[in-house]
């Protein structure tokens, strides 16, 4: 159906805005990344070559994606059960749970990360508890480690995993579970053969959101990871603002974008096939 004149008028402002302030800048960034020097005089692919051949650079990329993956796995393992519990809880409990799940989304990443700084700090609760039960003599360094970053990321991104899974579970016909039980299947089999596959679209959406959020979580990575741990977002910032090397920073940004976009596309394809199987 061809768009009428009115549709064009309505969507034009938004489309124009995105063209000028989203598409154009990103394209420009791409262009800038194809210059060989920081002064932006000679075009070339030197930045990408530099990134992809340098061990340090590849380690930065690798570690960013790896930590993102771990955080996603962590969020999945505890987030899915939480969504499941929400679905079987009575209505009053559901209301409270929903507020608990949603509230973090409305508070800044800075605040949520700050909580982890407090928890994992030298005088934080973990160290206090460990010292109180006599497990350690001196405070252990918990902050500024990759593990701390993974744990913090998994917790901070948790609502993004839980909400799509809740939606997906809600779309499953309850009679399917009843039918499975009546046919003789127990809880575990019903979950593995019926519930889990049918919740795949939501599960994939959740994983995607957590992954995309985790690899670009500048605040958490810098506050919990500290200066020693260099990941893509901070690398990008540092190269642009501190080193003033815009082409390289642009290349880093483009690579990060590509890494996320690749996963988005893959998940979308898989999710679409899962959707048709589930909904038909």
């Amino acid at each position: 159906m061809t768009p009428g004149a009115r549709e064009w008028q309505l969507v034009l402002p938004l489309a124009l805005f995105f063209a000028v302030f989203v598409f154009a800048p990103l394209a420009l960034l791409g262009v800038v990344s194809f210059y060989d020097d920081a002064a932006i005089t000679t075009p070339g692919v030197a930045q990408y070559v530099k990134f992809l051949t340098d061990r340090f650079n590849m380690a930065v990329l690798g570690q960013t994606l790896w930590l993102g993956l771990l955080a996603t796995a962590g969020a999945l393992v505890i987030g899915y059960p939480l969504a499941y519990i929400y679905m079987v809880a009575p209505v009053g409990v559901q209301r409270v749970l929903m507020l608990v799940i949603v509230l973090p989304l409305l508070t800044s990443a800075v605040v949520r990360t700050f909580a982890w700084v407090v928890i994992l700090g030298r005088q934080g609760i973990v160290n206090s508890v460990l010292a109180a039960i006599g497990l350690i003599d001196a405070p252990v360094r918990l902050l500024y480690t990759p593990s701390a970053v993974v744990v913090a990321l998994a917790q901070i991104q948790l609502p993004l995993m839980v909400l799509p899974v809740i939606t997906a579970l809600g779309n499953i016909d309850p009679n399917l579970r009843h039918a499975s039980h009546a046919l003789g299947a127990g809880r575990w089999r019903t979950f593995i053969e019926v519930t889990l596959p049918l919740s795949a679209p939501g599960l994939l959406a959740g994983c995607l959101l957590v992954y995309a959020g985790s690899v670009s979580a500048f605040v958490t990575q810098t506050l919990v990871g500290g200066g020693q741990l260099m990941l893509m977002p901070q690398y990008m910032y540092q190269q642009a603002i501190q080193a003033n090397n815009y082409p390289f920073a642009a290349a880093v940004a483009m690579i990060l974008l590509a890494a996320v976009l690749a996963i988005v596309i893959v998940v979308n394809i898989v999710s679409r096939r899962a959707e048709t199987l589930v909904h038909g």
Partner: protein
Amino acid sequence: MTTRGVALALDGITHRFGHTVAVDGVSLRVEPGEIVALLGPSGCGKTTLLRIVAGLLRQSGGHVAVGGGIVDALPPNERGAGIVFQNYALFPHMTVEANVGYGLRARGTPRKDIAETVRRMLALVRMDGFARRLPRQLSGGQQQRVALARTLAVSPRVLLLDEPFGALDKNLRLDMQIEVKRLQRELDITTIMVTHDQEEALSLADRVAVMSHGRVEQFARPDEIYDRPASLFVATFVGTASLLRGTLAEGVTLECAAGRLPLGSVGAPSARAVVLAVRPEHLRFVDPASAGLDAKIELVLPLGPLVVYDVVLSDGTTLKVTTSRGAGVTPHAPGDAVRVALVPGAPASVFAE
């Protein structure tokens, strides 16, 4: 097939949702191999009762016994009650054969036996050749047959059907009803069917339990339900009935505002104020000399081999009268004055007010 009919007994089943009583002291005994219909309007508790029997719901009070043993403590996966849902609940992400074999897989049946049983079941419901299809590629009737095959594959002791034909087109309905009845007879499996469609209940079931507000109003064979309704609710819910209010005189005549109507013998209820529920086909027009009620014809509706008359009595009460359209019979016209009486020997249901 190792299915042999078992008896099913419900003893004082009560269930409350919060403050609402959904099922109120229901006791029934279903004989082995029998097909019983739970008939009633929505909200009468029939689906709740079915779910209780399946074990999907734990009743607030009372006992369910299958084959002589009380099964209250058994979860649905151990109860042996196969249930087919109104929307069939086929697993959308599994093929037909995976669906039908699901219960067998859950029991750890060897793969070869599963394949064999699935093949047999599909042949039984005449769906062989559809094994590799997905549920969304099937029509409503086909889905129902697969759902039946899936349930029967695990040889349930009792078969439970929840509004099985509600989602089907009218044309398909009769075919599926015959199919289900055939299967039920062939397998001799005790069956409970929930429906709000009285034609369905009266034609398919061996016995019908008419329910209202969580209670069983009458549990009897279809012809008894129709001819000798046990309560006013049953009389008006099943089939059409016109109601006449009045008092009983000498147990054989109804005195009401519009006149006196001879009833023939009637089991005299204890109260004097009564309601008479009478079926349209049990009324007829008589000549002015005979005893009966004066009425005027309002509407005439020819309905195939019958003519339905809507008549009004002198006090405003309306009655429906049905007569057959024979060759020598001239139908009345709207506006005619007539006299209405009971067909001799027709059952008259009189209830205390």
